[in-house]
């Protein structure tokens, strides 16, 4: 009985964990290149999910068309927010002042804007979920039940991460982005358009959130407040020390599994507090993340 519980928790955890990892990646990308914690990450997910719902249900489109459209929309949203709002706040910084708090609160402001935009729409008045991606018959592995849809979610999430890895490792644009994150001044010196890279990273984070949003929407109840799930991504990012990308991905999976097992063994009520306990525990005992070798010193 207990082993079945654990295995069922593991399987379910891997599926939701892959989505958490995706959202956490979007946070870490933004943090690494602009040092801003994006509290609106969850609302990017939310808005993409609603846009997908609209396109799929009202527009009658298929997932093949809806997903790229949603990703493009949130890409634009992220890039424009960076260019119009964050660049402006940063541009007004004077020596000896820290506008980071202002930038972080601007992302909180964005959460209200996005929720405020979605709330009056006809689809937001009641709880909904996306139509299933696949005709789902369950698959049994031993005694563990997995739906076809879960397998699809897991595969798409993992594929997205692989694509991201290839992009950052092997394409000129990806390398330029990494250079910008590592050392903006040196990147500017070798001719990388640093400002445009920052906007691009925000856009990329937005597009990742869109994929995550469409993957998670069939599994959770959609409300305009579903962006609160960002906290799970925060916890996952913290596990990876906020900068170590493989660590963040492992963090996402770990969190999905822990959450599932807490739900199955302790109580469903305790699920909501799990990510916070994880954040506090990791920061207290291993502030550099579970996988960071040593505490990072920042070069000036």
């Amino acid at each position, binding site marked *: 009985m207990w082993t079945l519980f654990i295995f069922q928790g593991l399987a379910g955890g891997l599926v939701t964990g892959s989505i958490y990892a995706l959202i956490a990646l979007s946070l870490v990308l933004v*943090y690494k290149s602009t*040092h801003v*914690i994006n509290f609106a990450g969850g609302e990017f997910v939310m808005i993409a999910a609603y846009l997908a719902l609209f396109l799929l249900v009202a527009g009658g489109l298929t997932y093949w068309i809806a997903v790229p459209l949603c990703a493009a929309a949130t890409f634009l949203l992220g890039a424009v927010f960076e260019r119009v*709002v964050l660049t*402006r*706040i940063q541009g*007004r*910084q*004077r020596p*000896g*002042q*820290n*506008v*980071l*708090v*202002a*930038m*972080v*609160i*601007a992302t*909180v*402001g*964005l*959460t*209200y*804007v*996005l*929720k*405020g*935009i979605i*709330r*009056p729409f006809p689809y937001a008045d009641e709880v909904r979920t996306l139509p299933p991606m696949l005709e789902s018959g369950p698959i049994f592995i031993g005694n563990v039940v997995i739906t076809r849809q879960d397998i699809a979610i897991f595969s798409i999430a993992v594929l997205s991460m692989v694509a991201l890895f290839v992009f950052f490792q092997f394409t000129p644009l990806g390398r330029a982005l990494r250079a910008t994150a590592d050392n903006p001044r040196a990147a500017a010196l070798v001719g990388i358009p640093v400002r445009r890279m920052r906007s691009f990273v925000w856009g990329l984070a937005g597009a990742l959130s869109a994929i995550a949003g469409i993957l998670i929407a069939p599994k959770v109840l959609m409300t305009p407040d579903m962006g609160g799930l960002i*906290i799970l991504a*925060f916890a996952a990012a*913290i596990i990876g020390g*906020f900068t170590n990308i493989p660590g963040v991905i492992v963090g996402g999976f770990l969190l999905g599994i822990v959450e599932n097992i807490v739900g199955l063994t302790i109580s469903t*009520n305790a699920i*909501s*507090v799990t*990510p*916070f*306990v994880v*954040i*506090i525990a990791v*920061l*207290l005992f291993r*502030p550099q993340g579970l996988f960071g070798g040593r505490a990072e010193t920042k070069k000036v």
Partner: protein
Amino acid sequence: MTNNRLVLVFAVAIVAVLVAVPLFGSIYVVFLANMLLMYAVLAVGLDILLGRAGQFAFAHTAFFGIGVYTTALINNHTGLPFVLTIPAGAAVAALVGVIIALPATRLRHLYLGLATFAFAEVAHWVFNNWESVTGGANGLRFQPQNTGFGTITNDLQAYPFVVVIAAFMIWITRNLERSQLGRRMEAIKESEAAAHASGISVTRTKAVAFTISAAYAGVAGGMYTLFQSYVHPDVLGFDTLVLILSMIVIGGLGTLPGVLIGVVLLGLMPEAMRGLKVMQELLYGVILIAFLMFMPRGVWGFFGPLIFSRSERKPAEDKP
């Protein structure tokens, strides 16, 4: 006009408003005034940590909640006058503040922000689930506060006490600004390494700042029990934290007049937007972002230098 005279004019204006509220305002206006004064103590307390010591600490609503529940529960069980229960609430909040400060002083920037935010959310979860003590999601009802001579049964009766407490806390803040401790915090904000090199104990100063800030939130919690009779955990959640943070940042981080301006501006904003219903959330976000974009140093950072003559400002601020 010289700066001293300007300050005097502002002081007289503020006193006039404070006196006019109970004389001419409806009971709702008095309630609003009570809320704003409570927010003033909350915001000034958080600003000590955020604006002066430069620590990203987002656990303020947790300490506020601890203040509310402690004061209310002691009142419910003993009926002691509030001059005893509010300090008790502040003391418990400060005690928890010390306990949090010890590990928190090891963290910085983003990590401190997330750790304290997580602590606030855990506290919120406890408020919501510890039913035998906090009443859980049903909220907690408490009896009217005892003044020692009678009970406070409405907002009007609570108002003078709320004013006195708020004035007292702001006066303390004013003194703190000019004290050695205040300057030590300022030094830490500028550079921890430099502060350390000049013989300031960084860890101790941070811990003290944490404790003081928590105590302010505890006092604000006590003020809440003066004019309310019921508390629900929702009051102690993320939205309130964002509200207090916005007050500080929009008013002017690290400046006392700025924070108070922010309290009034954001405290009255929901009233101004009352008729807009569904648009409120969107508009709140837009206004928040617009203020940050166009006045990143806050209203006070923007208008303060225009109103007060340049001679009394620090030389560093003269250069644009």
